[in-house]
Structures are given as C-alpha cells and as structure tokens.
C-alpha cells in the first residue's frame, strides 16, 4: 500500500507543480468569458447525477447544476459544452485544460485536494445500503451478522462487511447476477451503492423490496477546479450558493427522482438565511 501511496503522492506533486506553473498565467474566468462557453466534465452513465435520457440528451442533477453555473457566469444556460468523463480520466481532463470544471460525482478526498481545488460541497453521497424484501425485519448492519448477503466482487467495502459486520458475503461478478440471486432468496439482501439501489426500487419488478439497512457512511461531493484559480473558484461557489438559496437543488432532487436528503435541505436553508 505504501508503494501505491508514494506513487500517488509523487504524481500529485508533479501535477501540482505543473499546475502552479500554468494556473498563474491563465485565469479561467476570463477564458470562459472570452470563449463565451463553459466547458464542463459530467457523467453520462450515472443516474441520477448525469445520464442520457430517452432522447439521447445528457441530463441529471449535476448537469442541471452545471447549466445553472453557466447561466450565472455567461447569462445563458445554453452557453455550455458538456464533456462526458469517467472517474479515471476526469482529473486529468481538468488539469490538462480540456474542461473548466468537473461536476461528475466527484467525492471530496484529501488525496484529490492535493491536485485540484474543490468547490462548495453540494451533495452528501451515501455509501452502500442493503436492499431486501419488504417483509425483512432487519434494519441495522449489526443484525446482518452470520446472514448471507449478496454483493459484488471487488467492492471497496467488502472487507468491512465480512470482518466488521460478520456478514456471510455472497459476492458476484456483476449486478444482474446479484439481483437474480436476491430474487431466488440465495441471500436475504443485496449490499450495493445506495443511489443505484434507490433507482432499482422504482422498477415495477422490485416493488416488493425496500432499503432495509441505511448507509453507514456519507461522502461529500463537490465540483472540481484547477488549483489556485481564486477568481474562478469564487464565481463558481457564488453560483452554487445562489442555486442552493433558491431551492434549485431540492427541485432537481425531485426532477431526477432522488430521495430528498436532509443535507441538501439544510444547505438550502443556510444559504437562504445567509442571503437575507
């Protein structure tokens, strides 16, 4: 593990150094204004944050947020270019200057903070939860001890499940297999990313199921910006704060079928209070 961390640290430093050199030259805000277009890295395969709708347009919670920021900066939400990114390339896209900002399910971590700046945190993303039949009486992680629970091989929380909660984890290669096994009662529940399970519950096939055990952890999510660009950072934060104060994020939660979170409601309230 130490070797990996060192490697990450070195590459982070290299990127940071590279950045310190170029960030001083280019102010992103002037660039964006001169260009008349905000270039944003978004997900296009992750319901509800950024995905393709029936017409093939990229929509989602973070896409709406990106459009709102574009409107605040440039006067129109159409002055935007959406660039699809994935977890493994989004930071490179940003540091290399191909995009101005990341709004792509970016979790706030200390390692990433060495390479990029984070905007205001706007979502508190849930970790894993457990999907189970409505009749299930289990509601706590501790109650799953010794029980067979379906999962996915390679998930980062699997060790915690078996070692800390004492779960008999039945881990599959892919999600469809795990869903099938849950329906076959090979396990009493399926532990997976909470947001994905919430979306699954909306399918008619899964009407008799519920989230039996709530996530044990939450990770704040924020936009990603190039390091040390204070002017642009402030402008984006102001736009996000304004959206929060206007209750836009709560409206997007409704629009994209997300369960309403206390976190977003509290932030909206705080932002509105600050404004008045």
């Amino acid at each position: 593990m130490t070797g990996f961390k060192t490697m990450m640290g070195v590459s982070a430093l290299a990127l940071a150094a590279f950045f310190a050199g170029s960030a001083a030259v280019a102010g992103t805000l002037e660039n964006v204004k001169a260009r008349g277009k905000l270039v944003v890295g978004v997900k296009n395969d992750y319901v509800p944050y950024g995905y393709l709708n029936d017409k093939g347009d990229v929509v989602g919670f973070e896409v709406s947020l990106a459009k709102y920021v574009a409107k605040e900066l440039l006067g129109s939400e159409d002055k935007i270019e959406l660039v699809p990114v994935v977890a493994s390339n989004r930071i490179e896209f940003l540091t290399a200057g191909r995009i101005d900002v990341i709004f792509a399910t970016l979790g706030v971590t200390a390692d990433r903070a060495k390479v990029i700046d984070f905007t205001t945190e706007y979502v508190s993303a849930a970790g894993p939860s457990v999907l189970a039949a409505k009749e299930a009486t289990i509601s706590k992680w501790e109650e799953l001890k010794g029980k067979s629970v379906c999962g996915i091989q390679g998930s980062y929380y699997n060790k915690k499940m078996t070692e800390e909660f004492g779960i008999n984890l039945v881990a599959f290669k892919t999600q469809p297999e795990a869903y099938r096994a849950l329906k076959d009662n090979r396990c009493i529940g399926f532990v997976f990313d909470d947001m994905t399970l919430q979306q699954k519950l909306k399918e008619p096939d899964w009407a008799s199921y519920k989230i039996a055990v709530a996530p044990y952890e939450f990770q704040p999510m924020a936009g990603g910006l190039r390091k040390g660009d204070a002017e642009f950072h402030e402008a984006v934060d102001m736009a996000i704060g304004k959206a929060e104060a206007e209750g836009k994020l709560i409206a997007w939660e409704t629009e994209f079928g997300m369960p309403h979170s206390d976190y977003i409601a509290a932030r909206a309230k705080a932002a509105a209070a600050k404004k008045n």
Partner: protein
Amino acid sequence: MFGLDYSWLADPAYQQWLLTGVVNTLKLAALSSSAAIVIGMLGALGLTLRIFWLDALIELFVEVFRNTPPLLQMLFAYFTLSTLGLKVTDPSTGLSVPLLSAFACAAISLSLFGGALAIEAFRSGIETMPRSIIDAARSLGYGRWARFWRIEAPIATRICLPGLTNILTNLFKTTSQASVITVPELMYYAGQIYNDTFRTLEVMILVLLIYMVLVSILTFAMARLEAFMAFPGYGRGH
C-alpha cells in the same frame, strides 16, 4: 525485491481469506475428482456391456457434459435449476430457497464434466487393450463380470493413467471458475484482495505459485501411482 510489495500479507483478514480459499479449492478438487473417477469407471463399464439403449445414454451424457463449457454448466446449475423448480422451503424463514448451494452446484458440474472426460479415457484404455489378453482370459474360463473386474479394469486403468492425470489436473484448475457462482475458493478471494490493495501483480504471482504447488503435488502423486502400477511389457513397465 523487484519492487514487489507483499506487506498486505501481514493483514490477518487476508491470511484467513487465502487459507479459506485454499481449503475450499482443495475440497472442491478432491470431491469432483473422486466423483469423476467413479463416473468414468461406471460409464466405461456400462459401455462394455454392449446394451443398445445404455450405450446411447452414456454417449449422450458424454457429448452433453464434455462439449459444453464447465463455466456454463455451473451457471446453469446455480441460476437455472432453481428457476425450473429445484427449490425447498427453508423451515426457519418459510422462504422458498434453491435446493443446491453454490458449492454443490460447482461440485456437481465439475464431477459431471470430469466424469464425461474420464469415461472417454477409461473407454480408450479398455479398447486399446491387446485382443490376445481377452482371448486368453476367455480360454481360461473367465465370465463377463470376472473378466471386467479382474482383467480388463486393472489393465485399462494402467493404460489410461497418463490421460487421467491430464483430466484431473485440468479439473483442479477449472475449480477456479467456481468463483463466478460465489464459491469462496482461491480465485474468489484473490480478486477481492487485489481490488482492496491494488497489488494486482503481487496477488497474481502468489496465487499462481499456490496453484503450481498444489497441482504439482497432484501430478507427482499420479506419476508415483503410474510407476507403482506399471504394466509389465508396456510403457514404464518395459
């Protein structure tokens, strides 16, 4: 050495996983190998009886289980059989649950796959047996059964041992596919460990060595058995 990092091996959880994985791999291999040998012998015996419908049945069994991937057989046993109705009611919860566990599905699939190959190996052993030996046995007054158990089976076993060694080593390695239906064997845990630690190369090298040692023990034992059972006048018995 070579920049390889094995510090994750100090984690008791990973040690336990590897140990459990090796034990389950050995259990699965031992069970399916024994069953495959029994199936192979019964099948080959059935073929010597020259009964029309039995021949057809055995041939069908061999074609089905030898010509389909064992991975597919396992997935079929695990997901499809319960859907087709192979279910029982769990007395503690009242839920309808699949009758066969993941381990049972893997063991049965591997036994049938190995068995189909073993039938062919034993059959070839019986068929390549010198005709003169059978004639000699006949002239000495051996009946059909006595001839099979006392003459044909012992000689055929010796002739087909090298082929059987191939089948058993292949079967041992095929147990790694059981991770797909969640049997917690060596590959199942190896995948989880390198996903956790990112030490993909290190984990792969270790697992490779473990398989190599285990399969080498098997092939060594089979080689000794071959030497011990050498058939005078043939192969190593020369």
